[in-house]
């Protein structure tokens, strides 16, 4: 049975308030049956230094990715992973993590490919939980394996591939990387290629809105009004647009995907997870350099 929504007024402004909960809500519901809290961080060891009591760890790199092909786990792999974490199909799964929930949003996006029914982000993530002086635990839970059905991954609704992005040129697109990555001045030494892209710049027509602009100082999401000013005002998007978002490997853009789809209620937002590490290495795809789209 799904847990109740967080009724905090800030969340009620969002298009899908059921997708977000506060640290306070998590603290109050930690013991509730039907809830699993999962931490997803950039740093693979951060969870081990202390985490929300009872939370399991979900690592984007070693668990959500296929170990061989550049892709995510398949339906069977996802079912196995969820089962190991004690998550069943009707579990309320609350994700949180470091860096403004960057990786937690990525994990949430991957879980969405499998249509897990009740996914939520903990607003403010790990940083806010710690800043509020809430308890951390180094005990690793050993959940009893849960039954999780094998559900096919749906790559149509919220995921975009390179050919689809080529066909999408001229339509709304958001590049969420840093301004330096967007313009193509890669800020690294020649002998140390960063993240392996052969060409710098951005996909023609993509507007630059660095992902972290959606987060406030305390790592929580900005209010609905503030987000509308950025994405609908400055970037000129409209909720009925067909939007593609991308970054380097699709992690930072998952954060923006979450904002557009769930906080602002856009109907069709796809995350291009191939992102710059695919585009910037592809033969004969168009690239724009400089600060203009």
């Amino acid at each position, binding site marked *: 049975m799904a847990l109740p929504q967080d009724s905090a007024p800030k969340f009620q402004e969002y298009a899908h308030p059921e997708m977000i909960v506060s640290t306070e809500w998590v603290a109050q519901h930690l013991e509730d049956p039907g809830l699993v809290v999962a931490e997803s961080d950039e*740093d*693979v*060891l*951060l969870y*081990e230094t202390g985490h929300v009591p009872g939370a399991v760890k979900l690592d984007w790199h*070693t668990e959500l990715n296929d170990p061989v092909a550049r892709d995510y786990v398949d339906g069977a792999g996802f079912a196995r992973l969820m089962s190991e974490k004690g998550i069943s199909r009707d579990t309320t799964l609350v994700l949180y993590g470091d860096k403004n929930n960057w990786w937690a949003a990525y994990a949430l996006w991957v879980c969405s490919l499998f249509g897990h029914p009740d996914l939520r982000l903990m607003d403010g993530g790990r940083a806010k939980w710690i800043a509020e002086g809430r308890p951390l635990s180094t005990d690793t839970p050993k959940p009893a394996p849960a039954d999780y059905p094998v559900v096919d991954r749906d790559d149509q609704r919220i995921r975009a591939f390179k050919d689809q992005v080529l066909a999408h040129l001229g339509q709304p697109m958001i590049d969420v990387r840093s301004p330096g990555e967007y313009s193509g001045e890669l800020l*690294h030494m020649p002998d*140390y290629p960063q993240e392996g892209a052969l060409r710098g710049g951005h996909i023609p027509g993509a507007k630059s809105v660095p992902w972290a602009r959606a987060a406030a100082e305390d790592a929580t999401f900005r209010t609905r009004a503030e987000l509308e000013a950025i994405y609908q005002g400055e970037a000129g998007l409209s909720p009925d647009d067909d939007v593609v978002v991308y970054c380097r490997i699709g992690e930072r853009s998952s954060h923006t995907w979450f904002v557009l789809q769930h906080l602002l209620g856009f109907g069709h937002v796809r995350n291009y997870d191939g992102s710059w590490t695919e585009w910037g290495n592809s033969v004969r795809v168009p690239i724009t350099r400089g600060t203009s789209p």
Partner: protein
Amino acid sequence: MTTQPVSGAALNPRLQEIVDDFRGVPDKDRLQLLLEFSQDLPPLPERYAGHRDRMEPVPECQTPLFLAVEVEPDETVRLYFDAPAEAPTTRGFAAILHAGLDGLDADEVLATPPEFSSQLGLADLVSPLRLRGMAAMLSRIKRQVIQQRAAPRAAQ
């Protein structure tokens, strides 16, 4: 799986001991060992604390890491690392290099096989992408050793 580097160069005894420690524990304990290393990274001396401008950034690490290398007149190499507590993996890598190389002489540091990090058995646990950060730290340390030998640092 071989623990010998491809180049055939041997590890110095301290690094070899670290590699043996990592290889000697089951997978599930290897991350714990890395966490313990991260907790043992020595604090910065006063001349570097709060002075990242005096250190070299290592952007290849997912979380910013700063390092400083000093080659003393007798060619002893001193290493200093600065990484935030929220980056235990990066701190762990830095601590391994510190435990394995700090205080050795320049030739010994330069003889470290570049692929040494792949011998720790961490690739599947940590991901090869994350391990690249450690290889980058090692290349930057070596480059600084070479440069400082060629042109000793101005008297400090």
